[in-house]
């Protein structure tokens, strides 16, 4: 078996200064081929009975030839994916300060209850009489979400935050259509600091996106916003707390101005974790807001999904909520699906079945574990931890704005000025110190941005070590003697810096018998 893993020759070639080993492995760092390079015909990891002998009813459409799937036994599969897992950083391993992403602890009881027989194994189209507990569970989560946000309605089906944005903005378009104003109101305002999904969503719905500048305090410039509002504006899309980690202190004035202009207020709820239990978005004049269950309510990020993005809606938008939703008739739960006679004018359907039930279960378990008292403490500890990091680093690194911040601390790169070390280099050096880097170069309004979100899940001792590590790195960068070391970082990770330009210039998106890495490198 070829375990050279694409080395150009010898075992430890290139710039590595490490001593070579015979296998190319380094203790727990084990080089791992692709499954396609490991399989043998005739091997399998399952034992299935013979199929019953029946007449083929495939309408003459039987597949000809091999599919090309590799054959591996169960132990090989376990070893392969276990080795791969060891090449990942994860919340379970330590501080994961990825700003805006909310890498908080993922409790295991949530996993357990999501897998209970009678929850994890239900079919979405079972007769409704056989899923009364499941419908009640969804409604219970909906109740918590509505109460915590102070909003009268919620659409549960969106599959992720961006999907929730699509849902909310469709509801706004539907409300405008009902008022006969959709053709006239074609502009959506979004701060320059917005998540990329905001302009992408608005543009997909045919709106023209107009950026609103930030003021020197990192908040929406109210005067510029008022100047931009007019009869052509459909909505503002505003994240609060915003992507600089700051609460929009003039948010009540903003929502009043937006409503006075006949427009709607879409709140991007990606940062709801900072204020859950402390502030209800409904009290701020919000018309709709998606909630990332995988951020605020701890459902696992899973290497990039699945997520869930329920959208809470104001009374003005509630009639347009998409199918499906849960209704209680007397003592019986029912799910309203397409075509059912209903009040209101649903905007349609966004997803098959009833939403991300597995995420609902986990989120509800998290919510019940914390309760109203614990959720308030979650927001307070998250904000306290971020301010602690900001305060401890304010003389070493350069905070982008004066505090206090909310759940994340934003720094710019002016402390690295003239050092030759960039934000990227600084972040990569953190990897060698055993940390996942913070969010870099976002939000776009801050030069060389570094956005640190410690969450409520880290012990003070761990925050202190993290702070000390950043101070040490900053001192090294400023010393001017370690530029080359920063540029070479990381040295100790399973892979060193990867050639992203090559990947994009000559895309290799799948394994082929012939496409070993050499071809890609040529």
């Amino acid at each position: 078996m070829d375990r050279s893993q694409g080395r150009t020759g010898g075992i430890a070639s290139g710039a590595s200064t490490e001593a070579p080993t015979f296998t190319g492995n380094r203790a727990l760092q084990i080089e791992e081929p692709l499954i396609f390079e490991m399989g043998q015909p005739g091997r399998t990891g399952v034992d299935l009975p013979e199929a019953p002998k029946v007449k083929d009813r495939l309408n003459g459409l039987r597949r000809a030839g091999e599919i090309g799937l590799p054959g591996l036994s169960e132990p090989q599969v376990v070893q392969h994916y276990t080795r791969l897992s060891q090449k990942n950083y994860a919340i379970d391993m330590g501080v994961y300060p990825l700003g805006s992403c909310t890498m908080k602890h993922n409790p295991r009881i949530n996993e357990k209850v999501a897998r209970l027989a009678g929850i994890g194994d239900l079919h979405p189209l079972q007769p409704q009489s056989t899923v009364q507990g499941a419908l009640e569970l969804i409604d219970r989560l909906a109740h918590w979400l509505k109460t915590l946000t102070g909003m009268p309605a919620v659409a549960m089906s969106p599959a992720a935050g961006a999907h929730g944005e699509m849902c909310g903005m469709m509801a706004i378009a539907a409300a405008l259509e009902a008022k006969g104003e959709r053709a006239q109101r074609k502009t959506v305002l979004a701060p320059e600091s917005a998540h990329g999904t905001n302009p992408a969503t608005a543009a997909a719905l045919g709106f023209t996106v107009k950026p609103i500048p930030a003021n020197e305090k990192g908040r929406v410039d109210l005067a510029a916003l008022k100047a931009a509002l007019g009869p052509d504006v459909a909505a503002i899309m505003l994240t609060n707390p915003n992507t600089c980690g700051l609460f929009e202190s003039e948010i009540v004035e903003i929502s009043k101005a937006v409503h006075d202009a006949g427009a709607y207020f879409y709140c991007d709820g990606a940062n709801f974790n900072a204020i859950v239990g402390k502030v209800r978005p409904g009290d701020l004049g919000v018309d709709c807001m998606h909630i990332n269950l995988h951020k605020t309510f701890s459902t696992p990020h899973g290497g990039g999904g699945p997520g869930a993005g329920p959208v809470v809606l104001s009374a003005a938008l509630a009639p347009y909520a998409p199918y499906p939703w849960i209704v209680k008739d007397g003592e019986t739960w029912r799910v309203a699906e397409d075509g059912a006679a209903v009040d209101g004018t649903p905007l349609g359907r966004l997803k098959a079945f009833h939403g991300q039930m597995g995420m609902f279960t986990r989120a509800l378990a998290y919510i019940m574990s914390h309760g109203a008292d614990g959720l308030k403490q979650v927001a307070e500890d998250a904000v306290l931890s971020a301010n602690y990091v900001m305060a401890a680093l304010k003389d070493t690194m350069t905070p982008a704005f004066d505090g206090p911040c909310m759940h994340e601390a934003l720094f710019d790169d002016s402390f690295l000025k003239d050092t030759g070390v960039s934000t990227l280099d600084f972040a990569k050096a953190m990897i060698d110190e055993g940390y996942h880097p913070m969010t870099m170069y976002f939000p776009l309004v801050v030069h060389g941005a570094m956005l640190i979100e410690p969450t409520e899940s880290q012990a003070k001792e761990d925050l202190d070590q993290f702070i000390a590590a950043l101070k040490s790195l900053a001192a090294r960068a400023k010393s001017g003697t370690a530029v080359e070391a920063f540029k070479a970082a990381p040295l100790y990770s399973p892979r060193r810096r990867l050639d992203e330009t090559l990947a994009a210039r000559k895309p290799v998106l799948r394994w082929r018998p012939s496409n070993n890495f050499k071809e890609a490198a040529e």
Partner: protein
Amino acid sequence: MRYLPLTDADRRDMLGVIGVKSVDELFRDVPLSARLGAKVAGLPDHLGELEVERAFQAYAAKNVSPSVAPFFIGAGAYRHHVPATVDYMIQRGEFLTSYTPYQPEITQGTLQYLFEFQTQVTLLTGMEVANASMYDGSTGTSEAVLMANRVTRRSKALLSGGLHPQYRRIIETTGHWQGFKAVSGKPDADGLEDLIAAVDKETSCVVVQNPSFFGHVRDFGKLAEACHAAGALLIVVVTEVVSLGLLKPPGEMGADIVVCEGQSIGNGLGFGGPYVGLFATKEKYMRQMPGRLVGETVDADGKRGFVLTLSTREQHIRREKATSNICTNAGLCALAFTVHLTLLGEAGFRRLSELNHGKASQLADKVAALPGVKLLNEGFFNEFTVSLPKAAAPVVEALAAKRILGGVPVSRLLPGDKSVENLLLLAATETATDGGMDALVAGLKEML
């Protein structure tokens, strides 16, 4: 609070370093009118793990688990046996609690399995490239139509009457609000629909499903030719991905985009989600694809590694010019898919597929032998439609009362359409037993 490491002493120390007296001072930017003095009213306080588990067991007890009832429901989600290894693997914290692999040096685990996943998807579908997954098959299909509109610069989609009704509804919703036309065929219960004549110079794509919502298995090669002659794309949707072990793949029929619901491999029914969308296309359309892509490259030492690539299509770079607003895939569900398919391998996957076809074939014969029951399918994979001598919905309810989960009445998904009132969709996978089939047949016999 078991999840919160900070002690009151820690909190006091931290407030001291920050230079404030109370945590509420940190919330001073919140307008006074919106500050809650106390916790949110009307909600209970925290619970211990034991109490939480009991509460969910109580929810579960109010449902009928498919593990205790004869089960024949499909219609876009299928009950298959998932090996214990799959669930163990996706619960490893290194996979479960990792983020999107934006730092490739320390997320090679995620990136490599996604590269394996992409390759598996191309092999199953017979296509050239695949992305790192979509939310699910239903949303992926809608994204495929948007992609076809971009590629062809046209804005009319023809939707087969054999397409899952909820998928169709999602495309119609997207079309209404995003500004394209979706023309839907009549429900194609007999599997004889001919869309070729409807393809014209304004058509951006034709969306068909194989096996269809009603279970029919068809070759769309001629339709693909007609699409290409008119400058349109053929989108083939597969909601039962296990069928690809036995059926000619859409790529060999000339499909331009293939979207599958991947739930059947590795992912439990989960009451409808989260699932995993497979999305594959031809290489020439690669840059118009939505969603994340993983590509192979090398690191500074010349070692093979993987990265997210072609991200200039995506919202975090392109903002309002992005190919899609999508920011999430179904990473962990894709891992479950990949681990399960790797366990199966070529031999196991083909046998699983044969087993499904065999079980469904047996069930079809048994059900069609009942008086007044007619099988509508000439060809099918593991799901078929029967016409009953009376309305199907009350029959399914009556079966449920006997704890038999006996299929989906087509009227549930096409309410108000009298022509489908008597139609029942039945699926049988490898999980179907002889005893279960006999119970269903006996139950039906009693009710008809």
